[in-house]
């Protein structure tokens, strides 16, 4: 193990590699900040650049893009309330209210440090536990997957804002939207009502941008007089205190470590990723907190949970890749492709045959995390200037960027119609106090749940397997506890409110 790390250090300490990795991290942060751009797209775009590099340099650069991208979503999530990447959805819950309270510097600072420590913790897990975690992840079949998704869906019950019924309705809407279009397992198209372009389905990113971004932008326009007078997004003086925010993050070790563990574990499971882990970590932080009613008002706990949760999926996601040569996500799939292009055969023997590559990944991840910290902190003062832009300029500009982001996805003009429709839906849901996050959760998780449920039933019509297979049962039990706890906590909060 030590020899591998030493080899890694030897590879990393070259100006050429460090320079490319720095650029990669910067590009990742920018890509992560633009709603609709996605980390996956950024990594795919990095691939051709790496052809001319040695495998170590290419890998290190991609790692930089990956780590940078996961933290880039924080910027737009906090400053304009729009998640730059799906992994920053839960960040908007508390970072944006904190910015609205006039503390954008604090929101960014906490998010950056939480991303940094989350990354570090997952890296430690990666180095120490890679083989064991990978073996566990391999025991997962369609029953376990389905139960995991059911568990993830029960979180909807706790992020529903004031009404569980409305939150579940929003979640089921998301689930339904995801069924529109071609059903991959049977080849039949569903619920297109003869509209041709719906046959391709509804891309979840378009739903995310429409429901979150467009509705958020329209809401900004409700304060008619403020907009007309040229008011900025955040008024007042902006303070940025790196050391103070670091101490704030470190003052919540339980939250930090738990969120990072959740992110690492979810990252290690092939298919699940940062989009789920940030919300799961937020949910668990809220459940474990002594003041759950403050979540959503702009408290540090929520930001720490979400950002540590999403950045730690990076380390977790590398575990199946290194230990088994299996991609845990689209990002690691591209990294594996890069390795293959350079003639390296990823697989269970990677550690034995190419210890320098594995060492590069370990050390590279560590260095990328530091680069991310540095870039974010130096860039923060620049990013914070966004809050000084008048709303009447910001809103149309970001709306145009949303259109660009949606179009970039598939180069498909019809996606823009879906964007508009989802924007309207999101605005109305928001107007009538429906929580929006459950819609996104439904759209992301629905297809995974359906595929695995049908696969499980096709493998064996014995539905008791969901309960007799231990890991599957475990997730289902967690799901039941999750709903029960959410209900109990919600009732307690209502009682406390009534008493005070």
């Amino acid at each position, binding site marked *: 193990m030590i020899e591998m790390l030493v080899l890694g250090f030897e590879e990393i300490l070259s100006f050429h590699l460090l320079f490319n990795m720095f650029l990669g991290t910067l590009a990742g942060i920018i890509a992560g900040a633009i709603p609709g751009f996605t980390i996956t797209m950024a990594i795919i775009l990095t691939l051709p650049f790496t052809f001319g590099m040695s495998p170590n340099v290419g890998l290190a650069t991609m790692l930089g893009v990956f780590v940078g991208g996961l933290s880039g979503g924080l910027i737009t999530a906090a400053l304009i309330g729009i998640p730059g990447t799906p992994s920053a959805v839960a960040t908007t819950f508390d970072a944006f209210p904190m910015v609205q309270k006039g503390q954008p510097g604090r929101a960014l600072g906490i998010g950056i440090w939480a991303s940094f420590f989350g990354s570090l913790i997952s890296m430690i897990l990666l180095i120490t536990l890679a083989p064991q975690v990978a073996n566990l992840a391999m025991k997962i079949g369609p029953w376990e997957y389905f139960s995991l998704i059911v568990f993830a869906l029960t979180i909807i019950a706790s992020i529903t804002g004031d009404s569980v019924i409305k939150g579940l*309705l929003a979640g089921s809407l998301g689930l339904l939207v995801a069924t529109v279009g071609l059903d991959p*397992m049977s080849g039949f198209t569903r619920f297109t009502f003869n509209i041709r372009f719906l046959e391709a389905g509804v891309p979840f990113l378009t739903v995310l941008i429409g429901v979150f971004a467009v509705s958020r932008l329209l809401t900004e326009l409700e304060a008619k007089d403020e907009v007309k007078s040229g008011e900025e997004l955040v008024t007042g003086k902006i303070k940025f205190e790196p050391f103070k925010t670091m101490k704030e993050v470190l003052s919540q070790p339980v939250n930090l470590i738990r969120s990072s563990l959740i992110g690492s574990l979810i990252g290690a499971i092939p298919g699940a990723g940062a989009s789920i882990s940030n919300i799961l970590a937020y949910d668990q932080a809220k459940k474990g907190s002594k003041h759950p009613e403050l979540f959503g008002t702009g408290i540090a706990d929520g930001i720490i949970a979400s950002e540590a949760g999403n950045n730690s999926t990076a380390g977790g996601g590398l575990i199946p890749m290194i230990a088994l040569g299996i991609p845990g996500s689209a990002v690691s799939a591209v990294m594996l492709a890069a390795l293959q292009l350079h003639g390296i055969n990823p697989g269970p023997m990677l550690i034995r045959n190419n210890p320098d590559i594995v060492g590069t990944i370990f050390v590279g991840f560590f260095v990328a995390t530091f680069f991310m910290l540095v870039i974010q902190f130096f860039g923060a003062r620049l990013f914070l200037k966004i809050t000084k832009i008048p709303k009447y300029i910001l809103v149309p500009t970001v709306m145009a960027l949303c259109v660009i982001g949606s179009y970039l996805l598939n180069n498909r*003009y019809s996606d823009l119609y879906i964007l508009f429709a989802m924007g309207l839906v999101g605005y109305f849901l928001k107007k009538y106090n429906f929580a929006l996050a459950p819609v996104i959760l439904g759209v992301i998780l629905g297809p995974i749940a359906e595929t695995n449920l*049908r696969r499980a039933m096709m493998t064996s*019509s014995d539905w008791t397997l969901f309960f007799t297979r231990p890991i599957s049962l475990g997730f289902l039990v967690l799901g039941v506890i999750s709903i029960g706890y959410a209900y109990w906590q919600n009732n307690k909060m209502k009682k406390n409110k009534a008493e005070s």
Partner: protein
Amino acid sequence: MGELIAGIIFLLLSIVIFIQTSQLPESQYDPLGPAGFPRLIVIFMGILAAALIIKKVRAKDFEKVEFNFKKLFKDYKLIFISLFNFLLYILLMRFIGFRISTFLFVFLTQYMIGPEEKSGKTYFIMTSIALFISLGAYYFFQSYLSVIFPPGIFFE
């Protein structure tokens, strides 16, 4: 009141989709088939919608809702303007092209929702931003990412 309407819409949606699922085929290899999962979802949705409707009707708090369209339009003027422009932007893009439609959308919307009195400096900023977004995005994404935005009939 709005929540009651939302509940009714959800209920109607679940009924419509459930009827649609009857047109989907069954399969002996796939016990659930393409209809199974959506049916589960809309049954769940229908029950929730009914619960919401009952809850709202029981609460009996229908404020006298006057649909004063004039007041509605006045309060939400900026939103109507932006949405209308947004829709036009998307619809016209394929005809007049990405660059022109984006420029027009960004510039005109800023103009219409911004302050009434604008200085020369304001016009300069609005124009520069509109130009930067429309031309910048077009050429950047085309050159580096090979994304082809609709060029429009003037340039084809």
